[in-house]
């Protein structure tokens, strides 16, 4: 077990392309760190540099305080689980799991003891003598995990270990991994493109985009205080709604109406300098901070507005209500880019209608295609600068 420190880590390819740019990350001993981002954001490259499978172009990588930049993978004492498992097809499950120990010249009795122990934990005992070809996807996945666990390494590296499993098995294995990590207490770096996986598993999450680290924090922090539009749009499902707005005296004018700013928000905006009045902003609103106004009694703060629900999806425990708002123009090239990257795509354009999704209580009486009234909790409003995409607020409520 050890801590892992990445200092100014950069990966530059021969053609000058930088897959990872100046990455700084400190992962504490025993911490479960998630690297998350859309495909091509450099998260896997970063992981492979920690494993030693990619050369580090610049920067320092320390595992347990020791500089390991130039050490071969075998000398780093880390275990890795690959996306496609990479089990040795000519070996049985037992041999697969004991391979690393055998290479380390561990006595056979010791290997057998450890393999049996781990097989018991992973429920693989009755499959020990079988070949990977005869195992199901979930079993192969567990063997790959077992191969890593048996070694008792300084750290586990996982490269999208669940992405090849079907949805149900994925949820099951997710719980399993979480349980295992708590049990073993080993430092773990886990790469995924699935923000749900990231939110549910990690102690801390590092969001990456185009090789640049966007934000590091606990799932709660990331969710409540995204530092920029990208993180805001990437984290959360359904994702955050974005509407163009204009700052006025103590309120922000949005297509759904004027929303009163909280005192903290006002302080942040004044502290940030620049003319508060008349400033164009992008407002971020999480779907769950909407509610059917009929269900909100005596609201502390918020705004009520009339809508016509286009589509109402029932999830059983709740409704997803989709409605359109007429939105003005917010010019920001960077914003379009960000939106494309995060797959939000619902950034307002000139004269376009923007779709907004709201998560309503199952008791809601709104009907599809009929006018209704919704309420928005304005204390949860996020504000972003359209030019830079940065959040204009420094603190919001953490759930």
């Amino acid at each position, binding site marked *: 077990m050890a801590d892992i420190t990445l200092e100014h880590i950069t990966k530059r390819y021969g053609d000058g392309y930088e897959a990872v740019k100046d990455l700084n990350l400190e992962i504490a001993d025993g911490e479960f760190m998630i690297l998350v981002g859309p495909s091509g954001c450099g998260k896997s490259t970063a992981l492979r540099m920690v*494993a030693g499978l990619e050369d580090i172009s610049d920067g320092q990588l320390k595992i347990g305080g020791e500089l390991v930049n130039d050490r071969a993978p*075998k000398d780093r004492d880390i275990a*890795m689980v690959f996306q496609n498992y*990479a089990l040795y097809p000519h070996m049985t499950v037992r041999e697969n799991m004991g391979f690393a120990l055998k290479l380390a010249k561990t006595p056979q009795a010791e290997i057998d003891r450890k393999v049996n122990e781990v097989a018991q934990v992973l429920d693989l005992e009755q499959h020990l003598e079988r070949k990977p070809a005869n195992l199901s996807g979930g079993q192969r996945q567990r063997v790959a995990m077992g191969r890593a666990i048996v*070694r008792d390494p300084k750290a586990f590296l996982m490269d999208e270990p669940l992405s090849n499993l079907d949805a149900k098995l994925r949820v099951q294995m997710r719980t399993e991994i979480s349980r295992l990590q708590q049990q073993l207490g080993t430092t773990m770096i886990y790469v995924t493109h699935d923000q749900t996986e990231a939110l549910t598993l990690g102690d801390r999450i590092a969001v990456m985009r185009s090789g640049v680290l966007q934000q590091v924090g606990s799932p709660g922090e990331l969710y409540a205080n995204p530092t920029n539009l990208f993180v805001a749009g990437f984290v959360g499902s359904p994702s955050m709604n974005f509407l163009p707005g204009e700052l006025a005296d103590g309120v922000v004018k949005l297509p759904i109406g004027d929303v009163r700013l909280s005192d903290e928000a006002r302080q942040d905006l004044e502290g940030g300098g620049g003319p508060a009045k008349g400033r164009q902003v992008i407002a971020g609103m999480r779907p769950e901070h909407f509610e059917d106004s009929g269900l909100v009694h005596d609201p502390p703060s918020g705004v009520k507005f009339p809508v016509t629900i286009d589509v109402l999806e029932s999830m059983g425990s709740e409704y997803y209500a989709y409605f359109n708002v007429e939105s003005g123009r917010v010019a920001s090239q960077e914003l379009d880019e960000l939106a494309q990257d995060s797959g939000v795509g619902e950034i307002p354009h000139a004269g376009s209608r923007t779709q907004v999704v709201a998560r309503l209580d199952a008791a809601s009486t709104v009907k599809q295609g009929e006018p209704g009234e919704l309420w928005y909790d304005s204390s949860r409003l996020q504000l972003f600068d359209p030019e830079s995409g940065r959040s204009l607020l420094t603190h919001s409520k953490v759930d």
Partner: protein
Amino acid sequence: MKRSPREITGWSAAIAIVVIASLIPIVWIISLSFKDPSTIADGSFLPTKWTWTNYSGIFKQSLFTDALRNSIGIALIATLISVVLACFAAYAIARLDFPGKRLILVFALAIAMFPPISIVGPLYNMWRNIGLYDTWPGLIIPYMTFALPLAIFTLSAFFREIPWELEQAAQVDGATPFQAFFKVIAPLAAPGVFTTAILVFLFCWNDFVFAVSLTSTSKAETVPAAIASFPGASQFTAPIGSIAAAAVVVTIPIIIIVLLFQRRIVAGLTAGAVKG
């Protein structure tokens, strides 16, 4: 998909025709090899008088037994060297990115396509001048020229099939590059290596052009060349019986090899390594 009875009949007939067409010459030559010299030209498909004399005859001739020894030795050595060299080359081609990689493959392919007959003339002169004429290396070298491109091509295709991650997994598991190769990659590449070895061996074993042009005595003459110089019973009789018997004898090792390694040749050993 279920096939209709008509389709089944059609395919069966087509397969039967192909099998019969390719078996008739073999049966014929076996039949010839058992015919008594007096009935050899009687035109009947099966021997009317069975005899072993053709077989006992060729094994009494040192011309044939020496040639058999040369054939086995030359083919085995050429195969071994080609496959070992081709393994290194193919592994590099499959795994590493280096300038000129495509050029090497194209060049290898071009050499494999080269008609052997066109280099026999120059080789004959060269070998006589440098003393390689009528020696084992004199045949092994040109065989390797043609076998290597073939081997590099087939082997690099096999190596490419083996997932990269397996090697990386081995490295992370604590293996040195050599251990990763010998404990993980080599066992998986075995079917490919065997297939290649058999192809190369067949090529060397069957060659006639080089053998007949670059050898002259029992020192290095291989079976195909030796068969061509079998003497008849008299100056005016063709040694058909002996030729047939010799042809059958040299076919047997090939059949044995293919049967022995058939199981290994069948691919699919990599199944289960990665999610398909």
